[in-house]
């Protein structure tokens, strides 16, 4: 049965979180994601949940740290400059191994930048914007239906591995309206949180949630544990879409809203008799290296397209590791690459590899 609704991306994220059992949201206003807050402010009281407008992004992420420490499903959302402010808390959440969901609806930067869509926080999201050797799972939906499904999934992944999961979208995804099919019931994994600091009720030893270990030998062991966990996640949780890759001369690589433009490029190229394919990473961490192994022998070259100066392209190059040429094209500052922009680059590459 389910429920079919026309909704805005940002509102779908909020609705999906509630459906996934999230009853705690802490946020601070910033464009272009504030509809998430508005939706939470309206809905949380109706489902017995907590919506709280914090005094800053710094406070909001630390409220998330508190609720996550108490063992609750919790979310915050922001956009690029606000996510920078949250990095302190993000590093602590990583260090304390807390499950939490963080939404970044990216806008152009650096600094206050602009409010138009961008993908220039890829490095920050996937390489660790805060201090320390940590990772978080980064999901990159490409449409409103995926925003729904991945937000639900984000909570399950976070609980399963005691890790943060970031939904990395952009202003286009947050603001666009599309039809979304909601399931009647979500698969909410019931995961044991015996580590939580939620009051021992005189029935167990006291729990301690912390990220500090002054003995370097102890801290190293913690870090080794983190890295083992990240390896396990890399094995288990890679997600990607391969589109039109069979016999492709050039394979485009793009995530999020840019991947949709790339599908337009593929169609346009096909009309001109040029065969293009697309690798669409859905998880940015773990980076879907398996996808590239499947198609590595097919094209003459790969072309990464981003709304940035070229960030994901570095991971593509690491993955391809010199086996095929890797090119890049992109726009910055809130400008969206057009089909024409990308086609120009495609023709250039085609010329080079006749």
């Amino acid at each position, binding site marked *: 049965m389910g429920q079919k609704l026309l909704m805005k991306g940002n509102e779908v994220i909020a609705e999906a979180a509630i459906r996934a059992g999230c009853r*705690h949201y802490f946020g601070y206003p910033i464009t272009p994601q504030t509809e998430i807050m508005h939706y939470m402010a309206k809905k949380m009281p109706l489902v017995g949940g907590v919506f709280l407008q914090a005094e800053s992004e*710094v406070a909001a992420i630390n409220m998330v740290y508190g609720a996550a420490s108490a063992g609750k499903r919790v979310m915050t959302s922001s956009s690029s400059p606000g996510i920078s402010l949250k990095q302190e808390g993000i590093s602590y959440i990583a260090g304390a191994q807390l499950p939490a969901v963080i939404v970044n609806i990216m806008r152009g930067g650096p600094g206050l930048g602009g409010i138009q869509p961008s993908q220039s926080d890829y490095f920050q999201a996937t390489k660790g914007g805060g201090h320390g050797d940590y990772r978080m799972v980064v999901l990159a939906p490409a449409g409103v239906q995926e925003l729904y499904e991945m937000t639900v999934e984000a909570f399950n992944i976070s609980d399963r591995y005691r890790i943060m999961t970031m939904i990395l979208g952009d202003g286009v995804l947050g603001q666009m309206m599309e039809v979304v099919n909601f399931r009647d019931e979500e698969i909410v994994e019931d995961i044991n949180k015996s580590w939580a600091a939620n009051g021992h009720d005189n029935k167990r030893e006291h729990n301690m*949630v912390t990220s500090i270990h002054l003995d370097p030998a102890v801290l190293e062991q913690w870090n080794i544990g983190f890295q083992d966990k990240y390896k396990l996640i890399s094995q288990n949780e890679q997600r990607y879409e391969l589109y039109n890759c069979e016999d492709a001369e050039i394979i485009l690589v793009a995530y999020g809203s840019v991947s949709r433009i790339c599908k337009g490029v593929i169609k346009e190229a096909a009309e001109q008799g040029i065969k293009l394919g697309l690798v669409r990473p859905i998880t940015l961490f773990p980076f879907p290296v398996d996808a590239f192994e499947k198609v590595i022998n097919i094209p003459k070259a790969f072309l990464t397209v981003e709304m940035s100066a070229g960030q994901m392209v570095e991971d593509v190059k690491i993955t391809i590791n010199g086996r095929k040429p890797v090119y890049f094209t992109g726009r910055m500052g809130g400008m969206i690459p057009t089909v024409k922009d990308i086609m120009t680059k495609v023709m250039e590459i085609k010329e080079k590899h006749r």
Partner: protein
Amino acid sequence: MAIIFKAPDALCDVPMHYCPGCTHGIAHRLVAEAIDELEIEGKTIGISPVGCAYNNYLYFNCDMIQAAHGRAPAVATGVKRSLPESIVFTYQGDGDLAAIGTAEIVHAAARSENITVIFINNTIYGMTSGQMAPTTLLGQVTTTTPYGRDASYSGFPIKVCEMLATLEGPAYIERVSLHDIKNIKKAKAAVKKAFKVQIAGKGFSLVEILSTCPTNWGLNPVESMKRVENEMIPHYPLGVFVGADLEV
């Protein structure tokens, strides 16, 4: 044989790392005694700060969460809003609460978060070796005010109780001292009252405890107690700032 005096159950039986003459140990004991007497250890969650008390999660027997510098009131907010039936306290020093964490403490107080804040004011940063704190007295020599704190250059000490008392949120705010037995007893009563205010659901409670730092003050423990009495109390007067008539 009857036991007439023992360590509180809410304190773990482990050695503490605090310097000789430091009053953190006394403050910890008062908090633990209050938790014992109110029989709330099983539902209490404490938030550790950044500063000398960073690892007091090892010392309290209740569940504990270590927070980032100054963010304990925000972390406590997240816990208390998630578990409204729990008892949540933060334990913060003056650098943590009154410098880097000013926004968090002001807004937790303004929202009247139903939490208890134990605020240790010793007019100096202890853990990082004696820098100027927001509460450092004028003229006080620290490693970052080697010629004494000069108001024209470094501004004035912040009186946290007085500042927060201007807000409508707080239910109970009191400043106490640990420099002698009489005052330790008063401090104990204040800490216990702060927890009772929270148990009664009355809202935000804070106890500022004037404390010593012999190591970074360059004084022995006895001289340190005298400094609290003779130099700190004149600037930071003891007493109840909010909730004097509050019966809990």
